[in-house]
């Protein structure tokens, strides 16, 4: 049986390493074996017929029966054993016995040979059947390996590849012929080790591209040798989906927060002028009935102002909702030019405030929606003008510098300054620290919103009241061209 096991193992290795070569080889072998069998049979028959009865010539019929190991026709061992039986009997029936040889002895001799021949035939047939079953099993497993959508790779304990299925060929770009015998670590982007390791890895294709892999590993011991088999799945699509899902979720959460802010604002700030309008309409009615024209005029003015405030709030709310919804093209925006433009637009208010505005030369460029970024910077400059109006000489500086992948820009003033407690609150929608300052308090909310839709941030640095403020925003930097 050890012999049979050796052949099976040899065959299986042949099938794995060169799956298409084995068939052509076995055709030749089968024909050769059959031809040799016929010749051997005739030879044994001729010799046996010539030998005097009592000599054990028939034992040699075992040889053509044994050739059934290689002859493809499965009936071979039984047919040859049958023919041998007939031949053994025919050559001895009615034969003359030499002196001293008893008839029973001669027939015992024949019977022994028959048992040997038939035992061989049964062993060969049994082996053939086992091998056929093993072939079927292998074909089944081979079909599974080839149709599996996951890459399946086996390697021995020396780390060289012994099996490489077609999914592995598609995944890594190597053909099985190229991959077999190569070290398995050529499939890893990182030097994860010589062997196959379970877990998430970075795989590398033949063309050098790197992709995420999920690997499961099984270890089997085959006749003292350890074989590692890895089932690998390319998870780049899943990772991509996860990324998209996370991004969608984030934007959904942001949208939800925005909606929440919106309803909150509507319930507070938009309703407020309405209460004023209805209230003063009531008071106006009374004044009219009493004939107090001075009061009538005053009440009408309050109503008018409230209606105007409401219109302004609505406009600004709509403007805020437009950011992120209506997006312009993302382009490279040089901050120096943008700052100069904004300064030109606000030349009137700057002159009126008697402010000096300095733009730090050679500012870097950022990437973004030009119109929105201009709106952002303009709001910050207006804000700085507004809150440094009390100073004898308002001084404003606009600067920016590159920090890693982003650009941090700032607008600094020597104005009112902000208590650190309110550094977050000032960015709230319709939030004003001092209700007497003009405007509705939308400016900094706009600034932050614009920074956020550019995947940036906006914040304020100030040591406190009277110490001036520095409003900062960080935006993704434009790809460096002037840096080299």
């Amino acid at each position, binding site marked *: 049986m050890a012999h049979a096991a050796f052949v099976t193992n040899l065959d299986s290795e042949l099938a794995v390493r060169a799956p298409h070569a084995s068939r052509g080889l076995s055709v030749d072998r089968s024909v050769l074996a059959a031809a040799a069998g016929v010749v051997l049979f005739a030879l044994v028959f001729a010799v046996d017929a010539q030998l005097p009865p009592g000599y054990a010539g028939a034992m040699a019929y075992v040889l053509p029966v044994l050739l059934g190991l290689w002859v493809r026709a499965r009936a071979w061992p039984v047919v040859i054993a049958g023919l041998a039986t007939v031949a053994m009997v025919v050559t001895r029936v009615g034969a003359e016995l030499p002196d001293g040889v008893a008839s029973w002895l001669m027939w015992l001799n024949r019977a022994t040979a028959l048992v040997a021949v038939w035992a061989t035939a049964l062993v060969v047939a049994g082996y053939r059947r086992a091998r056929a079953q093993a072939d079927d099993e292998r074909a089944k497993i081979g079909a599974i390996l080839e149709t599996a959508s996951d890459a399946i790779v086996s390697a021995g304990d020396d780390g060289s590849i012994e099996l490489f299925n077609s999914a592995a060929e598609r995944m890594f770009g190597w053909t099985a012929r190229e991959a077999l015998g190569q070290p398995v670590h050529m499939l890893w982007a990182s030097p994860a080790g010589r062997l196959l390791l379970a877990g998430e890895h970075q795989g590398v294709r033949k063309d050098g591209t790197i992709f995420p892999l999920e690997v499961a590993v099984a270890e089997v011991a085959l006749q003292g040798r350890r074989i590692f088999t890895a089932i690998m799945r390319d998870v780049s699509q899943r990772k991509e989906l996860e990324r998209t899902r996370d991004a969608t979720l984030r934007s959904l959460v942001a949208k939800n927060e925005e909606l929440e802010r919106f*309803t*909150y604002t509507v*319930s*507070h*700030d938009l*309703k*407020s002028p*309405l*209460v*004023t309008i*209805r*209230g*003063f*309409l*009531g*008071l106006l009615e009374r004044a009219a009935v009493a004939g107090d024209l001075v009061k009538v005029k005053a009440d009408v003015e*309050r109503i008018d102002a*409230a209606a105007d405030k409401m219109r302004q709030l609505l406009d600004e709310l709509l403007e805020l909702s437009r950011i992120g919804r209506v997006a312009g093209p993302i382009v490279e925006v040089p901050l120096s030019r943008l700052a100069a433009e904004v300064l030109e637009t606000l030349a009137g208010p700057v002159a009126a405030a008697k402010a000096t505005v300095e733009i730090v030369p050679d500012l870097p460029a950022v990437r973004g929606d030009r119109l929105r970024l201009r709106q952002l910077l303009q709001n910050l400059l207006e804000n700085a003008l507004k809150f440094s109006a009390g100073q004898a000489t308002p001084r404003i500086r606009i600067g920016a510098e590159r920090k890693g992948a982003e650009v941090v820009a700032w607008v600094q003033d020597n104005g009112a300054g902000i208590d650190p407690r*309110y550094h977050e*609150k000032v960015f709230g929608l319709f*939030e*004003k*620290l*001092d*209700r007497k300052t003009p405007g509705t308090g939308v400016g900094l909310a706009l600034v932050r919103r614009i920074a956020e839709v550019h995947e940036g941030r906006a914040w304020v640095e100030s040591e406190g009241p009277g110490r001036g403020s520095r409003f900062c925003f960080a935006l993704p930097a434009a790809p460096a061209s002037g840096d080299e």
Partner: protein
Amino acid sequence: MKGEPLNILYVEDDDDHAEMTIRGLEEHHVGNLITRLSDGEAALDYLFRRSPYADAERFPRPHVVLLDLRLPRVDGLEVLKAIRADPELKRVPVVVLTTSDHERDIARAYDLHVNAYLVKPVEFGKFLDLMRDLGFFWLVWNRGPA
């Protein structure tokens, strides 16, 4: 009616609303002494007797605080939180009077043990009714802490 006037601290940033409220309360001749402040920080300074409200004679502790929620600097809920966190002030009745009927505001105000939550009616007639009821309730019917 009781003889003693009711000190009301009224925190409201909107001048128009403040005028309507004060006129509404005065119209019903409830003997009120209304101190109006326009932001949350000032309200805290007043309640905690910080400058410029350090003089306890001129700036007495209120019998009731009328509080708007949307205020500059420190918002109404933070003022409420500070009142409830202070051992001396925590019993002072606080009534929220605001335009917002947002569930989140209402829930948070009650979480901070507000005594009442009133939404300013848009209709002027109802607004006046509310002021009348408010004045009567706190001056006539309600027994405040000693």
